[in-house]
Each structure stands twice: as structure tokens, then as C-alpha cells.
């Protein structure tokens, strides 16, 4: 009879257990990986399309994405196209942490049958409890906002989480990025207040101040490097 209380037994037991469990988990992760990436990609496509006011179902999202997003490109902060980069594969949350000059800036170019060409820019920032992200679409003049979409990982329901609701996102429609030739991304202010400066603004969410500020900071931080690219659009 083996002594089950001995150290050797305990160590062997735990080693064998860890190997078995590790193998089982590795197998599960490997066999489900394709399906999971597919889902994550489809969800990203849905979010991108939502920023141009297109609501899609999971079953049709890939088709819709291919239909409306006619091309993508990656630019740098000087507005030059970066060759050979895949816009869809770029992790915006990682890029947003780099200095503006080194960032890879993805742009999704969307052609809508009744509203023309739109340029969709991805955003990533921090809310109160965790990451927030979004997409903002601009008209072909490079300054007028066509639509915006925001999402979050764990903002407070009913407060910060309201940034996903149309009541918040619809405020962005028609706002301007350039004012008298100056590049001033839209800011988020407390209801009833005015921003310091001349930029266009939207009202933040009552009770969701930190998240609202996070959205404002994210817009500033992520849109400023696009200045040169957007200027080149407005000149065209």
C-alpha cells in the first residue's frame, strides 16, 4: 500500500494531474481556435459596419462587410500609405500606446449605395473599469462625422455603459473635425457646459463622467495622428 500522505506521493500526484489537465486544455484550445477567431473577426466586422449605421446579423455579417467595405489601407502619421500592412489585423489598442509618429493607422473605406464613400477610423482607449473602443466614420471631405460606434468591456450598466446607446452615439452625426483649418477632434463635455476652445462637442453621460472623459481622451488620442491623412482627403 502506498503512503498517500508522503511528500513523494503528493508531488507525483500533482505533477501527473497538471500534465493531464494541461494536455486537455491545450487540446480544447487548439481544436476550437479557428471557430473562435472567426467569431471575433465577425464581431469586429459588425462593429465596423455599425459605425456607418448598418445593423447586421451574425449570419450575414461577413457578406455585408465584403459588400460595403470596398478597401482598407494603413497610413502613418504623415498621411503616407504603409505598403503591405493588413488594416484588419492591426491591434488598435496596442498601436494607441505607441508614440503618434510610430503608429500604424488603419482606415476602412466604405462605399454605401445611397450615401457615398465613408472613411472609418478605429479608436481604442480606457474607460473607468477597463478598455473602451469604437469606430468613427467620416464623410469623404475628411471632416464631417457620418456615424460613431462605441463599445466597452466592463463599464457600469446604466451609467458608463450608455456610451454604446444611440442616444449618445447619434450626437456625433454631422459634427466637424476641422474648424477654420484647425484640426480639433470632437470633445465630450458635461451636459450644459461648453468646451475650452472652438471644437465641436457632444454631451457626456450623467453619472458616467469618467467613461465620458475616456471617450473624449480616446477621440483626441486616436484621431490626432490621422491629421495629415484627413487633410489630404479634404484637399481632394
Amino acid at each position, binding site marked *: 500500500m502506498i503512503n*498517500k*500522505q508522503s511528500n513523494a506521493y503528493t508531488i507525483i*500526484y500533482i505533477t501527473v494531474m497538471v500534465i493531464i*489537465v494541461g494536455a486537455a486544455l491545450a487540446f*480544447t484550445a487548439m481544436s476550437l481556435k479557428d*471557430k473562435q477567431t472567426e*467569431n471575433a473577426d465577425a*464581431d469586429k466586422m459588425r462593429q465596423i459596419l455599425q459605425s456607418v449605421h448598418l445593423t447586421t446579423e451574425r449570419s450575414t455579417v461577413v457578406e455585408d462587410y465584403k459588400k460595403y467595405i470596398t478597401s482598407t489601407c494603413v497610413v502613418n502619421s504623415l498621411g503616407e500609405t504603409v505598403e503591405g500592412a493588413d488594416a484588419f489585423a492591426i491591434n488598435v489598442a496596442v498601436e494607441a500606446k505607441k508614440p503618434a509618429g510610430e503608429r500604424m493607422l488603419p482606415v476602412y473605406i466604405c462605399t454605401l449605395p445611397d450615401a457615398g464613400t465613408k472613411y472609418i477610423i478605429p479608436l481604442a482607449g480606457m474607460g473607468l473599469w477597463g478598455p473602451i473602443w469604437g469606430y468613427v466614420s467620416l464623410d469623404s471631405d475628411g471632416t464631417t462625422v457620418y456615424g460613431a460606434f462605441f463599445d466597452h*468591456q466592463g463599464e457600469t*450598466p446604466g451609467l458608463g455603459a450608455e456610451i454604446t446607446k444611440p442616444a449618445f452615439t447619434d450626437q456625433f452625426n454631422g459634427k466637424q473635425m476641422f474648424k477654420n483649418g484647425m484640426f480639433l477632434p470632437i470633445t465630450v463635455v458635461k451636459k450644459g457646459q461648453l468646451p475650452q476652445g472652438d471644437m465641436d462637442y457632444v454631451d457626456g453621460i450623467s453619472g458616467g463622467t469618467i467613461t465620458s472623459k475616456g471617450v473624449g481622451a480616446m477621440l483626441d488620442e486616436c484621431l490626432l495622428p490621422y491629421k495629415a491623412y484627413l487633410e489630404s482627403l479634404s484637399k481632394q
Partner: protein
Amino acid sequence: MADKVSNRDIFFNPFSKDNPVIVQVLGICSCLAVTAKLEPALVMGISVIAVLAFSNVIISLIRNTIPTNIRIIVQLVVVAALVIIVNQLLLAYAYDVSKQLSVFIGLIITNCILMGRLEAFAMGNKPWPAFLDGVGNGIGYTVILVIVGFFRELLGSGSLLGYKVIPQSWYDAGYADNGLMILPPMALLVVACIIWVHRSYNKELQEK
């Protein structure tokens, strides 16, 4: 367990007389977090049933080999592995729900019901009763989650499983959804109401 309890009792007791949430008051934390809507509550319940049943069976199968001084660690490893597998499956087959449940699936690991059942039941019983105990407790937990989710979604969002059930004419007549129902404190109050109703029907559970 020294006294002989029938398999039938093992399975049905957790539904009401020995319900993990409203009698043992375990697993309250996840009950608050995932019940704002009915659908995540259901998925969470099913996930807990699966994890609890399988971890009970696995622990029961290896109960005689586990060194006593590391038994909690062994239980945790088994539960954690199962939870990760459930999470991976949800990511692959129910992506939207898994996004809503986010960290709470991971937190099944720390759900007190699991550790409670493993330590109190699976460590001392054969696999079949352990399986019944796991499924029974999982269902007992799910039932409460679903009841809470039902009231919170109905009163907080005017819908059930995402479908609007409160007719538009009510809203036109001045009815408004109760935003408080969506916030976590209301889950606690709804659970409290369930406990109240449950105890007034089950006099033997009332404390003197």
C-alpha cells in the same frame, strides 16, 4: 454521509428544501452579476450545471487517491480546467453570450457552490450520487437565477430573452421601465423576496 439518503432526495432536495442560493446562500455574487437579462442568466445556469456535475463526478472518481493535504488544490485545478473548457466552448459557439458573461464564467471557479459541493459531497460519495448532487444543485441555482433574471429583465427592460413583451401602448400611456432593476442591488432584493416567499411556505426553515 453516514445516514442513508436516497438518490431521489440527493437530486431533488437542492431544488427547494436545500437550495444552494436561497437556503445555503451560496453563489450570491454571480447571482447579482448575470441576472440583468434572462439569457445570460440561463447560460450561466447551464454552465454551472455542467461544471458542477462533471467536477463532482471527477472528484468523486479520484476521491480515494487525493492526498488530503492538497485536496483543495486538486479540487480547484479540476474546477478551473472545466471552467476554461466551458469558456472556450462558449467563445466558439455562443460568442455574444460569452461577451455578456465575460469574467463571470471565469468566476465560476470561485463560486462557493462548487467548492461547497465538492468538499461536502463528492469527496465522500460514489460517482453516480455525486453526479445527481451536482446536477441537482446546479438546477437549484439555475432556477433562482432564472426567476431573478425574469423579473429584472421584465421590469427593467420590458422584454424577455430580448423580445419586447410590454406593448408600446403602455409606454405611450406613460409606463416607464424601472432602471433600478438593471442595477445589481435589485438582484439582492429580488433574491430576498424569493427567500421570504420560500420560507413562508416552508415553516421548518424559519429560524426561531
